[in-house]
């Protein structure tokens, strides 16, 4: 298993090209503990715009929530604000930001943060590490971290691979694990890697 994990990490290091932003790996325990809201949902649309003082392009993403794993979103459709986007012929590219495409499904780890020109908005705090693509595999739906396309600095335990690795993890197992941690938080629970 360790050999597999190391091989996976090496493979990710070789083929994972994306990102200038420098991120320390966040394991599942950390993602669950440090984000206030965790949901499964489908992106309805995305709209980019200049913030109020015209200093930064932001993008509002509407997400139709199908499952709430942590937190209490007020509606079944929530707004997530991301830095970057495209307005006219100008694009602000956030290296290492999450990619949320209308029509696709995700597990998202969300928190209220200050972004340029706006305060306390719901965003994907951990950037690519906080977004998991839902993909259909032979054994069902799997959640694949977008951080597989981004190199990570080792966490305190020395892990560098994104939770689930390049193949991701079964969605149902991920949901069960998250709910268990939310309901009975423990510091000694092993990482879901």
């Amino acid at each position, binding site marked *: 298993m360790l050999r597999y994990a190391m091989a996976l990490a090496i493979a990710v*290091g*070789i083929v*994972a*090209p*994306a*990102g*200038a*932003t*420098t*991120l*320390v*790996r*966040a394991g599942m325990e*950390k993602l669950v503990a*440090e984000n206030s809201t965790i949901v499964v949902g489908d992106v309805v649309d*995305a709209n*980019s715009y*200049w913030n109020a003082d*015209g*200093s*930064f*392009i932001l*993008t509002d993403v509407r997400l139709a929530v199908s499952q709430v794993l942590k937190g209490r979103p007020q509606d079944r459709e929530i707004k997530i604000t*991301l*830095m*970057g*986007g*495209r*307005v*006219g*012929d*100008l*694009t*602000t*590219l*956030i*290296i*290492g*930001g*999450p*990619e*949320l495409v209308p029509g696709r499904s995700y597990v998202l780890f969300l928190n209220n*943060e*200050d*972004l*340029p*020109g706006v305060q306390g908005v719901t*965003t994907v*705090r*951990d*950037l*690519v*590490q906080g977004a998991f693509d839902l993909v259909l595999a032979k054994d069902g739906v799997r959640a694949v971290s*977008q951080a597989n*396309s*981004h*190199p*990570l*600095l080792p966490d305190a335990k020395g892990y*560098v691979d994104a939770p689930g690795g390049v193949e991701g993890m079964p969605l149902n197992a991920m949901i069960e694990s998250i709910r268990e941690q939310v309901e009975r938080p423990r510091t000694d629970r092993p990482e879901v890697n």
Partner: protein
Amino acid sequence: MNGKNFSRIAACALAAAGMIASAAPSHAYRMIQNTTVGRVSAGAAVTCSNTGGFAHWNIRSISWLLNTANQGSGKSAALSAAMSSWTNVANANHVLSYAGTTTSGFSTDGRNTLLWASGNGCTGSCLAITALVLQSGQVIVETDISFNNSVSWSTSGSDYDTQAVAAHELGHSLGIHHTEVTSTPRPTMYATYFGTGGRSLEVDDQSALQCSESRY
């Protein structure tokens, strides 16, 4: 100057692409490509000869301002050294220079800014975040780098080394993606932080900048 007021700048000629392609090894530097409408995250990693082009400047002199708030104080020498590494690449005429201090933040204001802050989308597990502002034709018109003020930054060689990280991030600001070279000595554009070794550019890093300049 407000970001909305940038005038449209046409993309430069692609004539050198074919020649560059034949010279580039299969596992080497890669460039940042962003051609997807509305894409907000990292662009694709492509070869210098990719027909879709890549992010690039169409000016040679690029100046940077430092916001000295928080841990930005005392970092100008390390940042200047990182800039010099790219300026000194032979057969490439980009000149990166430190132009003094600013109170600007992580905003699209026509200034290339380096700053230390808590926020700007870089909290928690994020050490530093880079934004590229592109016009049509993937022309870079501004870049800003925000270092996470919640972690400790050093100029004496201990983690996290300001000069090494800055050299890497400045490489991205020039449109260069992570290299596929994994052997030692590791290029500065190697995907993961590896200490002060990232301060000095390797041939692979230099080739990336030379290739970009040849194409554009």
